[in-house]
């Protein structure tokens, strides 16, 4: 699975695309419906993680151990080589993300209103899904699937910026900050033992997000 870390990013993008398109194809029924899309996504995700468990239990012990570290998400031993590869991806992805940020303005209405305003909803959704798959897969390929950051960062940014929709650059910065902070804690908390960043990211970010949610409900801004 992670025989050599050099191939992991490519394998991650390929795997991500296959899984993502499978979800898309299964959820498509004369158009895309959010609920069906989410449910089928959860189903595919559970099926694939079962498959991963099979590999981990049946596979070679040493490799399985290495895979486990990668699977919790780890920045250990990451350097400019990985960062350089990600920079190329970002060079291509940032313009697409700018487009997505503008498109998001209109698809945050209900579907009928968005179509009424002249948007090609299916095309926009497919484009956004592909962008998400590529970005998530590249990040996972570089550092392993650090759970929860993608879900958490935009929500934190949204509440900090107090805007009506997810702010693009603020979200990206929040995500980076959460990961770096989590990594710092992971390395220092039980020093000299270094925890994988994935263990800490959720533990730090989730309570902060919950605090923001509770505060916004009380304050009602």
């Amino acid at each position, binding site marked *: 699975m992670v025989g050599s870390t050099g191939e992991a990013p490519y394998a991650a993008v390929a795997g991500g695309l296959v899984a993502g398109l499978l979800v898309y194809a299964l959820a498509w029924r004369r158009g895309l419906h959010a609920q069906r899309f989410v449910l089928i996504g959860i189903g595919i995700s559970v099926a694939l993680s079962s498959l991963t468990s099979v590999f981990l239990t049946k596979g070679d012990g040493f490799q399985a151990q290495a895979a486990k570290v990668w699977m919790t998400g780890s920045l250990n031993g990451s350097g400019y080589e990985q960062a350089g590869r990600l920079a190329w991806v970002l060079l291509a992805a940032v313009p697409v993300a700018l487009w997505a940020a503008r498109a998001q*303005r209109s698809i*945050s209405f*209900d579907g*009928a209103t968005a179509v009424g305003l002249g948007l090609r909803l299916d095309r926009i959704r497919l484009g956004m899904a592909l962008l998400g798959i590529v970005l998530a897969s590249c990040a996972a390929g570089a550092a392993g699937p650090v759970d929860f950051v993608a879900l958490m960062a935009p929500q934190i940014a949204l509440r900090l910026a107090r805007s*009506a929709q997810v702010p693009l650059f603020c979200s990206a910065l929040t995500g980076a900050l959460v990961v770096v902070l989590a990594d710092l804690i992971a390395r220092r908390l039980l020093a000299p033992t270094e925890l994988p960043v994935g263990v800490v990211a959720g533990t730090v970010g989730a309570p902060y997000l919950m605090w923001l949610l509770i505060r916004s409900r009380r304050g009602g801004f």
Partner: protein
Amino acid sequence: MSAHQPSAHRLEARGLTLAYEARTVVEGLDIRGPDGRVTVIVGPNACGKSTLLRALGRLLKPVRGAVLLDGEELARIPTKRIAQRLGLLPQSPTAPEGISVADLVSRGRQPHQSWWQQWSPEDETAVSEALERTSTAELAQGTDILLLDEPTTYLDIAHQVEVLDLVRRLNVERGRTVVAVLHDLNQAARYADHLVAMRDGRVVAQGAPGEVVTAELVREVFGLDSVVVPDPVTGTPLVVPGAPWASTTATAAVDA
């Protein structure tokens, strides 16, 4: 669709058959929204009126037949060009939480914007216009033709009147063509120039409300006994349903 004769109306549907999956809702329907007029579609629940409106607004592809906008088939016109001419207010629209009115209006102006020019003086006018009235993205869109799916749902009577008066003003002052689905037959009779009564996916009657709305029509379309009297304010037909249910003993007491 073969070559069609030039249309006298900006929005019309010919031989329209509409279906969800295997269930046919509307079959072989011809309808037009007369230019510069308010057309109101009425009918019982599940008669296909909202489905028809969705098809007129390109939210639903017809199985057979076509919707024509300025004589051109909707399916052949790029969606953004449709959005410059035809606005659509769905039954229960949702906007992002905490959005400002100006932001909402600017999103409504999207069909008139391009990525290199996102704000124009006309947008400015649209904003002030929408701010002084009920502000919605659909109004800011500023199209000649407006499709409204039960715009008064969930509103109290004062707001219902406000919305319908706004529709009238847009029609009279700006010459907007309106096609709306309304639940309330009396409101439909008050505000429509052209009334279309539907049942089971077909048109039962259409024309001026004064000619169309009769006790017979109400019985045929809704299966309801009623008395139709002139509206004391507008003179348009006012449908008063038959006597409410009462227990037989109570009726006997009244009779006695």
